[in-house]
């Protein structure tokens, strides 16, 4: 849950011949999340996974603020949960000991930070074993928009993609340490945006639009080599900061716990799969097809989260547990 209130702050920019004043309204956001241990759909077949989540979804909700804003954060770990949980915001520059400790079921933790640097950042649970808490779904993205909106070209369309590994047995921590993943997901689903796979959807754009992808690699272990098939990234911004600009990039590596922002302008109608070029990961789930069409409709920042699969009950539908 997010609420935003109040503002303060004044920035004066002084030149030699002129004095220009720019008022920057730094806001304060109340961000509350709840650790939810729940089953969620991770495949188009309706297959469910015993996830640990923020607010019942994988990835957790996108937090979006402007550089300089203050975040007053509260994590609630309900008494109905079984495990301790925590929250580590990579956008924050604060003491780890006081703020990132795990809290038991039935407890809450609150802290405040200022998002001082623009970019897209990972957030995740840091309760031990962290590898399991991340693998089971406790991660998400926080976007810190640059205070100067002209620091980069305006995007016509934006998406958030979070890559993560899927381990079939959520209790087998050893397989997580051994990097024996069974699939790789974008936004908590295997082939979630692959229309050629049962239950798969797509990402939409219009030809000529500048599509901005805020990309986070949650890991817990694998690197992503993010590549647009049939296109070239117009720009890549390391950690999503407009100051860290690359141009004309075919593939860009995003390590676990890192993030980058990718701009692509699709010139003509068609399909442009966005993949990790680490093929063992792509062919096991990490493919998102961007379909460019003149009649493309607006989509959510993180489409199909949560992944709702309706299962009509028929006389031939086997009863669960059989």
């Amino acid at each position, binding site marked *: 849950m997010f609420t935003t209130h109040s503002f303060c702050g004044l920035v004066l920019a002084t030149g030699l011949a002129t004095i220009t004043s720019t008022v920057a309204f730094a806001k304060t956001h109340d961000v509350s999340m709840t650790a939810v241990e729940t089953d969620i759909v991770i495949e188009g*077949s309706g297959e469910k996974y015993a996830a640990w989540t923020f607010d019942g979804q994988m990835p957790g909700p996108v937090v979006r603020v402007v550089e300089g804003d203050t975040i007053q954060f509260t994590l609630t770990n309900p008494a109905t949960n079984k495990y301790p949980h925590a929250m580590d915001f990579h956008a924050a520059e604060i003491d780890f000991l006081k703020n990132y400790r795990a809290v038991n079921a039935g407890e809450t933790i609150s802290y405040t930070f200022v998002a001082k640097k623009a970019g897209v950042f990972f957030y995740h649970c840091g309760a031990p074993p962290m590898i399991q808490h991340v693998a089971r779904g406790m991660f998400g993205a926080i976007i810190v928009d640059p205070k100067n909106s002209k620091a980069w070209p305006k995007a016509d369309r934006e998406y958030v993609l979070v890559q993560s590994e899927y381990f079939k047995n959520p209790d087998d921590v050893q397989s997580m340490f051994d990097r024996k993943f069974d699939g790789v997901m974008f936004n908590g689903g295997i082939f979630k945006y692959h*229309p050629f796979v049962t239950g798969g959807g797509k990402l939409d754009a219009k030809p000529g639009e500048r599509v901005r992808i805020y990309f986070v690699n949650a890991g817990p272990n694998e690197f992503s080599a993010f590549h647009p098939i049939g296109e070239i990234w117009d720009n890549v911004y390391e950690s999503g900061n407009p100051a860290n600009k690359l141009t004309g990039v075919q593939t860009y590596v995003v390590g676990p716990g890192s993030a980058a922002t990718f701009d692509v302008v699709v010139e003509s109608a068609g399909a442009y*799969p966005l993949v990790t070029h680490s093929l063992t990961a792509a062919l096991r789930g990490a493919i998102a097809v961007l379909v460019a069409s003149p009649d493309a409709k607006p989509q959510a920042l993180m489409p199909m989260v949560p992944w709702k699969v309706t299962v009509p009950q028929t006389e031939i539908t086997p009863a669960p547990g059989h």
Partner: protein
Amino acid sequence: MISLWVVFWSNGAFALERAALTLSGSGCRLSHQNIIETLERLEGVTRVEAETIPDHLLVDHDGLRRTEEELAAFVNGLSFSQGRCRAAVMRSCITAGAGPGGARPVPGR
């Protein structure tokens, strides 16, 4: 996108499969709707999606009665298209999985 899938859960005997068929030829525009309706009447086919990807049909089926190649052959055998709308299984670098068997040869080779 319609989120309506007839799903047989993983503990059931089978799950839905999706066949991606590319359509090409001068007769596709005219016979498009007929092809969709004929496929939808096939036993084991639960849904045909024609809007998601241009010039493609996404056919959800139970995987028990026909392979994706047989679905393409079925479309190619429809008399009303008179051979002017050809279907082929869409295979590409984003074809999901691969299985331990490796690459599949061209049929007949």
